[in-house]
């Protein structure tokens, strides 16, 4: 479908807003990490360090410069792909993160690919047969999953599948992944746990968005034109619920990159979230900042994408 220039202008505007938000967020991330208690040089050198040594290190690390200058240095570094050097093991942050990010994205990708279609289908089905046994079953299950904290689900999954039944390995990293079956087995537990948590939200939001559209006069009109229930829901209701659904999906999926720390910890999965926690423990500021920026970036890009879907799926914004 041909989109007019106004639509693209709106999309460009939305992208511009995302960019501005990213700068504001980077500002917040940088200064929030500055607020962490303790002096970096002091911590790095340990308790036995002389004051001269600490002062020297501060000078060498540029910690005496005004914060705003350090922020600008850091920001230009970010923009050019230079994430800085770890305080702790003096490796390039980009090298540290690269492998971890790939792991995280792999896990997130598998979960997203698996749970999004399933969740959308279940949400749409529940709204279509609202009030029936199917709807109630789906609602009760999703509420149950939302109410149980994820570490509970993760721990229970390990207890049942790894400890009692012995079907799947409890740890997903470091086990042999020489065959396809082994890979599937290694990923099974974290993927199942994350899918549960993520889909429950998506199902509920999809159902709510769909029901709101199904209750509109034009969907009733479709039924009065002789459309079947399937046609009514898929052809008339779904396109108009696309905006809110895309936003619900984006919010759920953004959780996969940053919010999975508990799941990564329980299954000893080497992703970015775990790296960040390690960074906090060792007060490795450049590492923490980079991880935080990655989380914010993924969150922002997902919500921006959802908003753009909402803009493009709404013909009222075309002239």
């Amino acid at each position, binding site marked *: 479908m041909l989109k007019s220039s106004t639509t693209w202008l709106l999309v460009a505007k939305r992208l511009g807003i995302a960019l501005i938000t990213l700068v504001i967020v980077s500002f917040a991330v940088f200064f929030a990490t500055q607020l962490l208690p303790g002096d970096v040089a002091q911590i790095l050198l340990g308790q036995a360090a002389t004051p001269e040594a600490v002062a020297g290190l501060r000078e060498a690390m540029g910690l005496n410069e005004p914060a705003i200058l350090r922020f600008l240095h850091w920001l230009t570094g970010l923009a050019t792909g230079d994430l800085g050097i770890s305080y702790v093991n003096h490796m390039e942050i980009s090298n540290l993160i690269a492998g971890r990010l790939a792991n995280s994205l792999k896990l997130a990708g598998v979960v997203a690919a698996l749970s999004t279609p399933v969740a959308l289908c279940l949400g749409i089905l529940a709204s279509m047969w609202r009030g029936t046994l199917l709807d109630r079953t789906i609602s009760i299950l999703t509420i149950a999953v939302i109410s149980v904290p994820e570490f509970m689900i993760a721990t229970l999954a390990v207890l049942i599948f790894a400890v009692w039944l012995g079907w799947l390995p409890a740890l997903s990293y470091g086990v042999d992944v020489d065959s396809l079956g082994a890979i599937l087995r290694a990923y099974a537990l974290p993927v199942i746990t994350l899918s549960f948590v993520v889909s429950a939200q998506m199902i509920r939001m999809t159902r709510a968005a769909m029901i709101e559209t199904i209750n509109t006069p034009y*969907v009733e009109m479709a039924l*009065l*034109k002789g459309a079947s229930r399937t046609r009514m829901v898929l052809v008339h209701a779904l396109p108009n619920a696309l905006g809110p659904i895309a936003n619900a999906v984006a919010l759920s999926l953004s959780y996969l990159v940053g919010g999975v720390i508990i799941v990564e910890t329980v299954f000893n999965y080497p992703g970015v979230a775990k790296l960040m926690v390690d960074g906090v423990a060792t007060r490795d500021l450049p590492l923490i900042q980079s991880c935080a920026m990655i989380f914010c970036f993924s969150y922002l890009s997902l919500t921006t994408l959802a908003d753009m879907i909402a803009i493009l799926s709404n013909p009222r914004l075309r002239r």
Partner: protein
Amino acid sequence: MTDAPLVSVRDFKVGATTDGGRKIDIIRGVSFDIAPGEILALIGESGSGKTTIALSLLGYTRPGCEMTGGTIRVGENDVTAMSETERCKLRGVEVSYVPQSAAAAFNPSKRIMDQVIEIALIHKLMPRAEAEEHARSLFRALALPEPDTIGNRYPHQVSGGQLQRLSAAMALIGDPKLVVFDEPTTALDVTTQIEVLKAFRSVLEKTNMSGVYVSHDLAVVAQIADRMIVLKNGEVQEEGTTEQILHAPAHPYTRELLAAFEPVQHTPIEARGRDVDHPLLEVIGLHAGYGRVENREPTIKVLEDVSFTLKPGRNLGVIGESGSGKSTLARAIAGILPAYRGSVLFEGHELAPDLQNRTKKQLQRAQIVFQLADTALNPAQSIGTILARPLTFYHGLRGAARDKRVNELLDMVHLPKSLRHRLPGELSGGQKQRINLARALAADPVLILCDEITSALDTVVAAAILELMRDLQNELNLSYMFISHDLSTVEAICDDVLVMYKGAVVEALPAARMSADAQHPYSKLLISSVPQLDPNWLTSLEQDPELVAAFSRR
């Protein structure tokens, strides 16, 4: 006409389950027939079950309702005994539906053509190209502009009157035997309504389709129906030909409905002990608008250079169609929307444009009553609390004195004292509007701005509210500024009338001689567009097409 009726409904019942799980009957055993080619009107007030019956003819009940007894036969089909899949095959082909608000019934994300021909595609009546051709010929028959390309637009790109005619095309595409019109012109302005009614009637006359026309407006129905059924509380009150219902109504309820149409002449009250020479309200060159402010002027200008005076004890009516700026005028005078130019003089003193800078005394003397009591009354507060608030705010009343005054106010609007403990949701529409009025009276005002306060009410209820307002005016020496799109309501309560069009006053007229004295072409058009009970009104109505084209946004 053949002897066998196309539709026969026998002892038909519909039940509903309330939120509390209680079962109630909505339709209590209704029977009627419709002959081929006949147009039957279902007349009644809100809650009379007219739409429920109309939808049942398509084998459809709204969620929460179900058919509980009796039979409906349409042609060869026993609708009541059919399965959902069989009913789907009936809809659009045998019976089709023209909705109340086409603006809401068109899917905003699909092109008009795709929605108009959808019936033909769902039921595989004809190939797509043929269906589109058929749709274009229907667009022509319904006198739609640019019939060849209008289908490529989206619903938000055409006007309300056009959408309503497009929805008729949508219903007629499958060549049904019966078309159900569900209040299809209620949401339209009067000048637009005429065009739509004419289009419907000419299409129905050319075919041998039967029709069911659901409406609360007897005058509209009189133009189009052969026969009428008067409904109340899900029961048939009276059935007869249009002529008989209009001229020889047998049932008291029908007479009551017709009586609400009788023109009521307003007699001005005497302004006792008041300075009648000085205006109560004087508006001079008022400009107001919305949107971003540039050079101290808002970008969307609504009111332009409105001036008028209102003497004490007199009532001023403001009439105009949607978008004419009549509500904006009330909001600008009340200070809710500050005017950016011009001045409002109230009791001789100039009022500040915005609410915050007016004195409490000024606020207390002029009150506003909004159209929808549902949204104007806080649903979580009891009636007593709602009425007590202005009493404390303006008069500092508390305790027993305040309770006594709340009771007096309820008495003034003819409601029982026991109502003070109820919530707004537990009251009927008319009762809520009375509370809305009582809240304004609590301040002891001399001027009440009434913004379409009877528009959402049934005619009989609205007539009672107007009666109450007249009584209150005599007792309390009030003046009203009465905003309405309904000319007969304005006639019944006002002394003078302002006709508004596109944010400007086009003419000021005495209410009693509106049609006789109107000089401005728009006033004439508006006044002549109000439907009359005479069934030949639409046929004999002659409006200058150039005038119509100039003033109505069809």
